[in-house]
């Protein structure tokens, strides 16, 4: 159970919002985008001071003992403020993997470092950027050798460690990879929403046995990916709410043909649909998070958590597309400029749509489950 009350969560959300208002304005954000890191090192240290980085880390490891609900509150606020820092891979994926699948030593080494802001971790999984070279691991003495490629490693450039998913004799295994180890190549670029992202190539890289996560199996990865999908949904909800607010303000203030754009029925109805879509995405996301927490704590799950997670990701992806595209359309020319922030929301939403499975992927799974009578025959 989370150590947080509903009120604690509100305070957390307020704290992030206040930070963004005070210290993460357009100028600072523009400077961060131009920096080599592509995110704010100073901000990261500040997040640690504010206690955000340990929000979902156990109190025994220097955190405050929250969980997915608190991460979601943080990610939603991060979405509103378009934060650039590596919250997702470090707090959700890596800390989640270590907490659930790491050895005591790994947890002792990395979780306090994450909570304290000293360590940034990335996560490399899924398909290779190219074809035919997924990462494979083979035993090598008292350790392993890893080879292969991974694409789209977010914040790979800044990571102190990259948790790499590899195939080990047909099973899933997770390894803590040091990016400076011999045989590791990282090629850096930016994602569509300006985040640092890397292609990772491993050429017979030696990893010690102690750097394999003992509990890092396929089931863990599946749980982690669902958790990450929900964190992404929460971030998208925040971004959609902010984009809707900006667009609604614009409709009210921008005049054309002698009247505000918002006095025309077509923009009105479109704005209504955008607000309804964000509302639905939020509701289904919180539902899925509630179910995931209930499932994790052994409580009675009303709905199966995977079903709700698939629905949440699919619906928030659909909402993200509608809101992202129509925010720009309703803003007109100004929406097309890099200087104005609405385009940044659009690009952020484009990325969030795709992370941890796009709408189609989740709908296919959900459709398959539904066809098979999944969920106790309850739909």
């Amino acid at each position, binding site marked *: 159970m989370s150590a947080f009350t509903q009120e604690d969560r509100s305070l957390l959300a307020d704290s992030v919002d206040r930070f963004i208002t005070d210290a993460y304005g357009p100028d600072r954000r523009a400077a961060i985008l131009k920096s080599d890191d592509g995110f704010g090192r100073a901000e990261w240290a500040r997040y640690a001071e504010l206690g955000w980085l340990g929000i979902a880390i156990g109190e025994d490891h220097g955190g405050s003992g929250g969980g997915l609900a608190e991460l979601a509150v943080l990610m939603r606020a991060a979405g509103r403020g378009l934060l650039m820092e590596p919250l997702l891979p470090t707090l959700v994926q890596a800390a989640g993997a270590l907490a659930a699948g790491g050895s005591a030593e790994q947890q002792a080494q990395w979780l306090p470092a994450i909570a304290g802001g000293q360590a940034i971790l990335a996560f490399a999984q899924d398909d290779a950027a190219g074809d035919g070279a997924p990462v494979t691991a083979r035993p090598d003495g008292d350790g392993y050798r890893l080879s292969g490629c991974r694409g789209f490693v977010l914040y790979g450039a800044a990571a102190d460690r990259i948790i790499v998913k590899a195939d080990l004799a047909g099973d899933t295994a997770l390894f803590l990879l040091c990016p400076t180890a011999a045989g590791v190549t990282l090629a850096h670029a930016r994602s569509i929403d300006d985040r640092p992202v890397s292609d990772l190539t491993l050429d017979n890289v030696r990893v010690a046995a102690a750097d394999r996560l003992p509990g890092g199996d396929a089931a863990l990865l599946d749980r982690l990916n669902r958790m990450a999908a929900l964190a992404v949904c929460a971030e998208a909800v925040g971004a959609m709410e902010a984009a809707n607010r900006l667009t609604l303000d614009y409709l009210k203030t921008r005049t054309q043909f002698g009247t505000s754009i918002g006095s025309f029925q077509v923009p009105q*109805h479109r704005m209504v649909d955008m607000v309804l879509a964000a509302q639905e995405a939020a509701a289904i996301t*919180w*539902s899925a998070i*509630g179910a995931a927490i209930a499932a994790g704590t052994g409580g*009675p799950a009303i709905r199966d958590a995977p079903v709700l997670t698939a629905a949440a990701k699919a619906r928030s992806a659909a909402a993200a597309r509608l809101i992202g595209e129509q925010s720009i359309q309703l803003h007109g020319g100004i929406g097309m400029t890099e200087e104005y922030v609405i385009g940044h929301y659009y690009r952020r939403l484009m990325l969030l749509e795709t992370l941890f499975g796009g709408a189609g992927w989740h709908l296919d799974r959900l*459709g398959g489950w*539904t066809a098979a009578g999944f969920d106790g025959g309850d739909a």
Partner: protein
Amino acid sequence: MLGIDLMRDPAIQAFRAEVQRFCATHLPADIRDKVLSGQHLGKDDYVRWQKILFDRDWIVGHWPRQYGGQDWTPLQRAIFDDETSKAGAPWLTPFGVCYAGPVIYTFGSQAQKDRFLPAIRSTDTWWCQGYSEPGAGSDLANIKTRAVRDGDHYIVNGQKTWTTMAQWADMMFALVRTGNDGKPQNGISFLLIDMKAPGVTVRPIISIDKCHHLNEVFLDDVRVPADHLVGEEGRGWTYAKFLLNNERLLGAEVGKSTRLLHQLRRTLAEIRDGGRPLADDPHWRRRLGELRARLLGLEAVCNEYLAAAEAGSTPGLEVSALKIMGSELIQGITGAMVDALAVKGLVYQTEGLEPGWQAPAVGVPGAPGMIREHLHDRATTIYGGANEIQRNILAKAVLGL
């Protein structure tokens, strides 16, 4: 409290289970089969089921105890509505128990309460709703039916339309114009009209599903006792709005969509194309997934609203949001059904809607019920204020546009 947490509340789960159990044991199989196969229900089917609910004290669960109800919260009411719908219970015709009853016990005289409420609860009186007119649909304030005071009676003249099930009705509650001052909403009164009174003529309207649900009701010099006026003259619009608000959280029709989605699932498993069931086709699978996701999304939104209502907040305009989402989802599901049927051809054998019909079925078994549902449900985005009107309301009242 998050909606999902509320749904996990043991008392809530127990109530849900109780409704499910009751339906499983008390809903007559013949009625359920008609509902699930989309066949015609007769008045006697509706009355039989409503009397079963009456016996269980659930027919007006959402009424206050002093009038024979159970003081259900909005959440309990929603659960009752969802679970009975899912189980294949007939539509709980709302004209008496949801519309006329609450207006009467809230605004009516003691005499009206004594006279009308018992028969509403027992469904011994069948009610219909006299709101829409040929010139007043979504624009309801524009009603023209006039009631002129003549001694201790009103003389009513005008025409109501789209009057659901008026052919079975004993009484109609109607909005009538008693004055013409100021805004069109003023001068509207709420009148209870005996359908057997001289001057009342009911003419069927056959809808595009070939069925008779709707009617025109002509009112020619109908004499209505003055004590059939509910509340004050000229305040009818206020009472109608009260009613609307009262019903605000049921517009999503989650239960009905759930039932229809089950039916779609079965249909996709049964219809084969190229030797394999449609359910195995990737396009159908994704479409089924999408409808399921939308249903879960709608349910989540409802649960948030219900949680807010449970926490004592008085939600206002959700009726518009739920009505938009709910009606468009229903059309999404029934549209998928007819698309699935179309693989084998759209045969609309309307005789198949009659219970007990035995002649050879042409086309896909069950098709008539699904086609009827689809055609009928084209109206869900029109009635009760077209979705365009709902979006206007939200734009203005919620977004401030």
